[in-house]
């Protein structure tokens, strides 16, 4: 892995600012994808901005009956949300878990609401 500097973002604004100002900066949240690629030196960021603890993991109801899912909400958390689960039963893949394919599930949910 190539050397890099590291900072933990205090809030979304400073994270965006750091990303814009520091050449070669990348965001890191969990690390599952990025770290794997960094070990193989496919990704070689000069600076990592840790956004993992920013308060963006909420799943909120929207006025039009949908859900607004925060960027930091994990797949398993979305899949386990009681509002998402019934929606994942609908559609052609009756047995498919939301944990495996959260996005189609949510799209179906959105379609069902429209």
């Amino acid at each position, binding site marked *: *892995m190539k*050397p*890099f*500097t*590291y900072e*933990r973002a205090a809030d979304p604004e400073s994270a965006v600012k750091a990303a814009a100002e520091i050449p070669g900066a990348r965001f*890191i949240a*969990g*690390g*599952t994808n990025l*770290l*794997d690629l960094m*070990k193989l030196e496919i990704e070689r960021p000069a600076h*990592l901005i*840790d956004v*993992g603890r920013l308060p963006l993991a909420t799943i909120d109801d929207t006025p039009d009956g949908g859900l607004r899912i925060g960027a930091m909400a994990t797949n*398993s958390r979305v*899949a*386990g949300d*009681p509002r998402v*689960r*019934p929606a*994942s*039963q609908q559609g052609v893949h009756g*047995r*498919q*878990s*939301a*944990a*495996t394919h959260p996005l189609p599930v949510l799209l179906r949910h959105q379609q069902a609401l429209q």
Partner: protein
Amino acid sequence: VETTITVNGEPRTLDLDPRTTLLDALREHLRLTGSKKGCDHGQCGACTVLVNGLRINACLSLAVMHDGDEVVTIEGLGTPEKLHPMQQAFLTEDAFQCGYCTPGQICSAMGMLGEIEAGLPSHAAGDVAAKPALSEAEIRERMSGNICRCSAYPQIVEAIKRYATEEGAAR
């Protein structure tokens, strides 16, 4: 980067190169070599530890990202003198041959049972809205991130079922 991680109940402060993974911090800096490095790419599960009660692959996480977190490794679950009941269940059911994957299997099993307790659905569930049952299919699906090249899978399933039954009876 100075990082303080509570490991097995004890706060440990380390001055780390940002590249240090949580796994390397545990093994190389804290000399807790129970957590194993198998693939180092998040595919084998040998490095599974519990962070704030949830299981993660310690090889795909930077130690500096865990400042202030609580990490539990196999050394924190039990000791040779006082085995954790899950460790005892693995012994009783002969749930390993070489044992390399076992610390990860056991940490993963503990995390997995917590996820079932919390009602999180899995691919094996017939009804993802229902509370998951501790069936063999559920255990196998939920433990699928932990590879055992000796193929002790049937005994691992039996060990987890034994632990769950005994703990359920003890409550």
